[in-house]
């Protein structure tokens, strides 16, 4: 046998043996990574910037910290509309209203009578922090690692290098400490300025500690926040602000032991990137075992997690969907959650199909592969997805994307009837149904007002439509005709897109931060929508920094923007149009600089009210004012599409709760079987290529050998 054939024989034998072995070669996880544990595999596309609950304010960070830190309250996992329930608290807070002389008022006291509201929160005893080096004590009850020596530091590169860990019971002082942290200048909490408006004494406190280190927070006090006893604390806020309870369900108000600040303030640890911003310390069901945001984040079940059970009741239909199968069982179910960095959607999607991720969203590139429209116009999974047992879940998000008219602009803005009719005409002409169909694969719901579905004040009936843009037709809203829009244009003095007074063509300007190649089609589409009315739309694309600057200066005429709810309350949407929040004058979130005295009056009133029929009526009235004035074109509420494998259980869309991981359950055995079935290596093409290359090269080699052996005759 020649050497070539000998080598070929060995290669073929190896490949054949590998194929017979039925081993999975493409698994991105180490073989022994699971053992008997129930492991969830997920991903993150952008590395979290902050894991400090005082700083963190974005969804990709809440994926982690909401499982680690526990504010006193949480959203019920199953109930809808969204409902708050105690988490580390024993009950919902006791709220006491006081007048300016600190005299207690009735529960139903009017907002203008209430000078202060006291929130008294009772905590469950016996809750413990996760094991952590910051809490480790020696035999003399002194902290082991609060004053690290150079010798101790030599072997420390990560938090796991600390040999000893400790824990202690959660107390009311830990919650108070976190409130103090919100205003420490070194921490730069995004809600510091907002909370200074509400929490009594927070502004003064911020001033008093502005030059002090974080370790000084422990021994200073805020006048409005008080530890009543080991398990009770009180927060005093200015006036009546019922939405404050929602803030108490966010990680900003999670407990932080003072020991964490003392431990992490050591410069030597900061130099090694061991900081509280990267290594959390909480009481939640999970703790961060590995924090390598460049590669993966691994969370393990917190061995000290307090007793917590899966809810026994939910929404109508939850039982039938199997969502109450685990009712009353101890949480959490998953032992370990592995989040891997996946920057691109295509590799992520393919790994999901191979079973290496348990759930996935649907990127535009994969939409047709995953979802199809059935005969009745309903969405369903493709056969390939159904064959894999993949399930689809959709939910309308609690956010809104809108097109805004700068009300300070001389053409589209202002209170004049001419400008209002122009805005309404454009509202009718821009066909967002078409937009959702073309650019979002149908993943959105056209907005009829400011409030998204599932938020108090939303109505899906005839009374909930925008009557200035839609008609109610066959139990559904139907966009008014283009003729109606043209009529409005005529009434506004712009018949056929020409200014009646000057005879000049109407040119409007759309400012946008969308300037990438993918956005070109969208922007062209907008041009065409305006062109239906004869309006020439000029796109002023810029980067997001410049765009924000234009908005701050009021230099934009028309723009597109969006808002995602902080909490499920209409106030969190109406405030985007409240006069005192106008962007130009006050630097607030009212980007259109809308000002309507009646709307503002109603806003002030409704924002201090509990949900009630009177508040609902007020919300409807406010919606009517906005629809009439049309400072916004209510674009759409995006619809999230999630796919998950059939070994993944207890999934229910909950757009408010972030601590959902503890409720989820995985069947690892089934996953193992399916992964093996779906990932058998295919080796024959490689063998074929090798044979082909050899066959092609053989004649040339032979010819070369013949030539080399030739002699001069």
């Amino acid at each position: 046998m020649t050497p070539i054939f000998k080598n070929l024989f060995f290669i073929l034998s190896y490949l054949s043996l590998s194929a017979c072995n039925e081993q999975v070669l493409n698994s991105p996880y180490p073989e022994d990574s699971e053992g008997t544990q129930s492991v969830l595999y997920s991903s993150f596309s952008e590395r979290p910037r902050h894991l400090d609950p005082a700083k963190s304010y974005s969804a990709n960070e809440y994926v982690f910290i909401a499982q680690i830190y526990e504010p006193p309250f949480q959203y019920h996992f199953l109930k809808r509309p969204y409902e708050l329930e105690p988490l580390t608290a024993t009950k919902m807070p006791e709220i006491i209203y006081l007048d300016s002389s600190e005299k207690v008022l009735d529960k139903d006291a009017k907002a203008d009578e209430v000078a202060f509201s006291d929130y008294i929160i009772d905590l469950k005893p016996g809750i413990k922090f996760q094991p952590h080096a910051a809490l480790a004590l020696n035999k003399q009850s002194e902290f082991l690692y609060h004053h690290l020596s150079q010798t101790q530091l030599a072997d420390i590169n990560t938090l796991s290098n600390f040999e000893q860990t400790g824990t202690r019971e959660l107390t009311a002082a830990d919650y108070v400490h976190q409130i103090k942290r919100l205003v420490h200048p070194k921490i730069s909490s995004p809600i510091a300025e907002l909370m200074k408006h509400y929490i009594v004494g927070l502004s003064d406190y911020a001033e008093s500690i502005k030059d002090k280190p974080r370790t000084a927070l422990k021994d200073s006090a805020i006048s409005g926040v008080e530890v009543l006893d080991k398990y009770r604390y009180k927060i005093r806020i200015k006036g009546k602000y019922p939405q404050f309870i929602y803030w108490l369900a966010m990680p900003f108000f999670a407990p932080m032991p003072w020991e964490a600040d003392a431990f992490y303030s050591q410069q030597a640890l900061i130099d090694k990137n061991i900081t509280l911003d990267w290594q959390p310390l909480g009481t939640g069901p999970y703790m961060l075992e590995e924090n390598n945001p460049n590669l993966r984040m691994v969370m393990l079940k917190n061995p000290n997690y307090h007793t917590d059970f899966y809810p026994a009741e939910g929404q109508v239909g939850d039982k039938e969907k199997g969502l109450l199968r685990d009712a009353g069982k101890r949480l959490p179910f998953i032992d370990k959650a592995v989040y891997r960095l996946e920057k691109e959607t295509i590799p992520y999607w393919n790994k999901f199909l191979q079973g290496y991720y348990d759930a996935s969203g649907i990127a535009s590139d994969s939409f047709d592969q995953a979802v199809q429209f059935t005969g009745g116009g309903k969405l369903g999974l493709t056969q390939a997805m159904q064959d894999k047992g993949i399930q689809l879940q959709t939910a309308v998000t609690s956010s809104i994307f809108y097109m805004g008219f700068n009300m300070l602009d001389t053409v589209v803005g202002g209170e004049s009837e001419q400008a209002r009719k122009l805005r309404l005409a454009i509202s009718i002409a821009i066909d967002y149904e078409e937009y959702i169909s073309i650019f979002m694969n149908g993943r959105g719901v056209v907005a009829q007002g400011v409030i998204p579905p599932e938020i108090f004040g939303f109505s899906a009936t005839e009374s909930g439509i925008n009557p200035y843009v839609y008609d109610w037709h066959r139990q559904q809203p139907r966009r008014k005709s283009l003729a109606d829009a043209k009529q409005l244009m005529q009434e506004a003095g712009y018949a056929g897109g020409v200014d009646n007074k000057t005879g000049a063509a109407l040119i409007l300007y759309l400012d946008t931060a969308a300037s990438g190649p993918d956005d070109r089609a969208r922007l062209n589409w907008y041009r065409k929508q305006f062109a239906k009315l004869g309006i020439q739309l000029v796109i002023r694309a810029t980067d997001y920094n410049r765009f924000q600057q234009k908005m701050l200066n009021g230099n934009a005429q028309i723009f597109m923007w969006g808002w995602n709810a902080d909490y499920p309350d209409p106030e969190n949407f109406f405030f985007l149009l409240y006069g005192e929040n106008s962007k130009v004058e006050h630097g607030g979130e009212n980007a259109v600089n809308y000002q309507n005295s009646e709307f503002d009056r109603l806003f002030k009133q409704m924002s201090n009210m509990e949900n009630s029929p009177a508040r609902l009526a007020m919300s409807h009235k406010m919606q009517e004012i906005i629809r009439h004035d049309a400072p916004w074109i209510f674009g759409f509420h995006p619809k999230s599409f999630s796919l998950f494998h059939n070994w993944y259980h207890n999934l229910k869309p909950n757009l408010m709760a972030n601590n959902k991981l503890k409720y989820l359950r995985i069947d690892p055995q089934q996953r193992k079987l399916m992964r093996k079935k779906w990932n058998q290596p295919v080796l024959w093409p490689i063998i074929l290529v090798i044979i082909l290359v050899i066959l092609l090269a053989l004649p040339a080699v032979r010819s070369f050998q013949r030539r080399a052996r030739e002699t001069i005759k």
Partner: protein
Amino acid sequence: MFNYILRRFLYAFPLLLGVNILTFVLFFVVNSPDDMARMQLGQKHVTEQAIDNWKHQRGYDLPLLINPQVAGLDKIKDTIFYQKSLRLFAFDFGISDSGRNIGQDIQQRMWPSLAVALPSLVVGLMVNITVALMMVLFRQSYLEFATIVLCVIIMSISSLFYIIGGQFIVGKLLMLVPISGYDTGLNAYKFLILPVLISVVSGVGAGARWYRTLFLEEIEQDYVRTARAKGLTETQVLFKHVLKNAMIPILTGVVVVLPLLFMGSLITESFFSIPGLGSYTIDAINSQDFAIVRAMVFLGSVLYIIGLLLTDISYTLVDPRVRLS
């Protein structure tokens, strides 16, 4: 030679200062400290006061290049440029705008970059030389013609296509390696196969053709004719004489890129989720983290200067006629 190296290092200082100033100016033409603060603080409830506090805490409330409100040297010293950029010369990269130690991050992230770049370079070099030698060995045969056509085809295709196609065929259809990802230690090997393979395949077209040209130039030399006249076989001529002499431009070409291997590849690292320095730079640009951007540009410049110096030194090692003075 020592004097030459010293002189080159001294030349590097004004060069690096220029790079530093240019990076600084370009960055702040596009981003203001207010923009950076907004980016770090998020989109919601960001007040002017919060922005001012963020800037003050990180020293971005100072003037950019000259401070007219102070006298003497402080005019230069009390500026963002002086405070943030000049300490780079001591390789003190400082803290990123999101609060992480950049030096630590670079130390951690250069290894994955190197893990992809080094095997890509070595295997790529071997494959390119082998293919080029084969082309020279089988010159004027159908095999050479077919290989040249294949090389031109390979050169004409975008590298992004190789990445997506490679992931699709090798990772998804054949299921031989993970589609993307990375792991620490020895577990990283299976994640490196595909990016290295793609890097080698996508580079073979240009590389093999370039080396073929070098070999063909050598093969026409007098010493080759002499070797043949001595009765050496074609393979002996190629491997013992042609390859050795053609190694001078190959080696110097390789030495110049050696230091830059640490910097990683932007596209490969992004598509394969490899946590290297390439993706670190891209992330920093996206999040407007000036501290990281300036550190990475500075590091890139230093490594490039070192690369050029090493090239000069390598000339003296492979060609005894060259002397550095």
